[in-house]
């Protein structure tokens, strides 16, 4: 017997429902990812409050649980906001404006960001990419190179962000009302774990958010544009690095196709691999930097000494310009 809903058979029914709710068929995956992240936080909080269940019998075993959970939560929160919400900021995932607005608020609070502030920051990044006024990226040395990776990730979030966002959102009369309202909603949501247990919130909420914004998102921002130059007619494809590792792009919403993304910010994240294939020859001819690995290995190389850093730019074998 086949199940029918609204005249549609079997698996067509949920697919049709998703089409009514989501702007793109694969936006459903973004929601699954975010909900799974919130479930992971809930599991960690619950086990922290029931230590006997996980074999916590003292300070050391509690420390081991906190370190394991905070690292895992920080890693996924960095992806959830830095990549997953990032997709939503370019192309809204729901058809309903109300859902888009409120889901965004319940999205970025789990990485210590008001959604409006994050979107503003990312707008700056796209509009001013690699310009003198692009304060989202690492500071540049006199020779145009980026400051050291460790310095950037530790100095940028939240310190430099606070300075710029205060100046450009809170102190600007035209933005202040909306910025303060969004900040208030964020504070109300972000404070929830503190109501449950303030100590737990520090270890399993604030610490993961620090890891997410510094070591995950911060290093990601660094490697996406390190060694790049502002887009010009002479060098149109040298403003971003491309990372082609398939496992990475599968689990990171295709963020490795970063050059394609900056040039085509309204192309859906799931369609970037196909766009990449179409632009492949153009990238080879233009001398785009295409790397066979991904962000984690890139960060490992760039955080090392001069010898390790020199291994960073090794071009993917299929993208060598032989002319």
């Amino acid at each position, binding site marked *: 017997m086949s199940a029918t809903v609204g005249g549609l058979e079997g698996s067509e029914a949920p697919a049709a429902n998703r089409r009514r709710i989501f702007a793109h068929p694969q936006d459903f995956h973004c929601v699954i990812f975010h909900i799974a992240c919130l479930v992971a936080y809930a599991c960690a909080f619950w086990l922290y409050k029931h230590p006997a269940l996980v074999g916590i019998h003292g300070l050391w075993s509690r420390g081991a649980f906190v370190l394991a959970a905070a690292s895992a939560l920080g890693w*996924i929160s960095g992806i959830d906001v830095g990549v997953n919400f990032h997709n939503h900021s370019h192309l809204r995932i729901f058809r309903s404006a109300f859902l888009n607005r409120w889901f965004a608020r319940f999205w970025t609070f789990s990485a210590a960001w008001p959604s409006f502030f994050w979107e503003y920051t990312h707008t700056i990044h796209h509009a001013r990419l690699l310009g003198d006024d692009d304060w989202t990226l690492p500071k540049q040395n006199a020779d145009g190179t980026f400051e050291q990776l460790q310095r950037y990730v530790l100095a940028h979030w939240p310190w430099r962000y606070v300075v710029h966002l205060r100046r450009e959102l809170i102190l600007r009369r035209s933005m202040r009302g909306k910025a303060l309202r969004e900040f208030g909603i964020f504070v109300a949501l972000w404070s929830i774990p503190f109501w449950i247990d303030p100590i737990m919130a520090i270890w399993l909420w604030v610490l993961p958010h620090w890891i997410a914004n510094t070591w995950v998102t911060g290093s990601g921002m660094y490697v996406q544009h390190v060694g790049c130059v502002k887009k010009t007619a002479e060098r149109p494809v040298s403003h971003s690095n491309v990372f082609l590792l398939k496992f990475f792009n599968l689990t990171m919403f295709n963020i490795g196709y970063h050059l394609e993304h900056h040039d085509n*910010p309204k192309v859906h994240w799931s369609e970037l691999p196909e766009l990449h294939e179409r632009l492949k020859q153009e990238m080879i001819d233009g001398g785009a930097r295409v790397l066979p690995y991904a962000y984690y*290995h890139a960060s490992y190389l760039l955080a090392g000494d001069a010898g390790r850093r020199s291994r960073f730019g090794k071009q993917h074998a299929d993208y060598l310009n032989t002319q």
Partner: protein
Amino acid sequence: MKTAYPAVKLYDAENAGRGDSISKEVRGNFLSKTGLVIGRSFGPLFAIVIILGAMLWGPWVSLAMVLVALLTAFKVV
């Protein structure tokens, strides 16, 4: 001095105009579609295993798994 600020509507940004006709359809059968959802949620699912798994194997094994995952990522991902 007045500074020009970009509008805070990122989703209005223009494309270079080369990706307009790419197919939106998810290719493959039910199994491959389900695999794609699980694959894309690898991170949070791994985190849930690390956290809930501590009930089975204790916090030290979870910590060791995180360290191994980190070292592997730095080397190969």
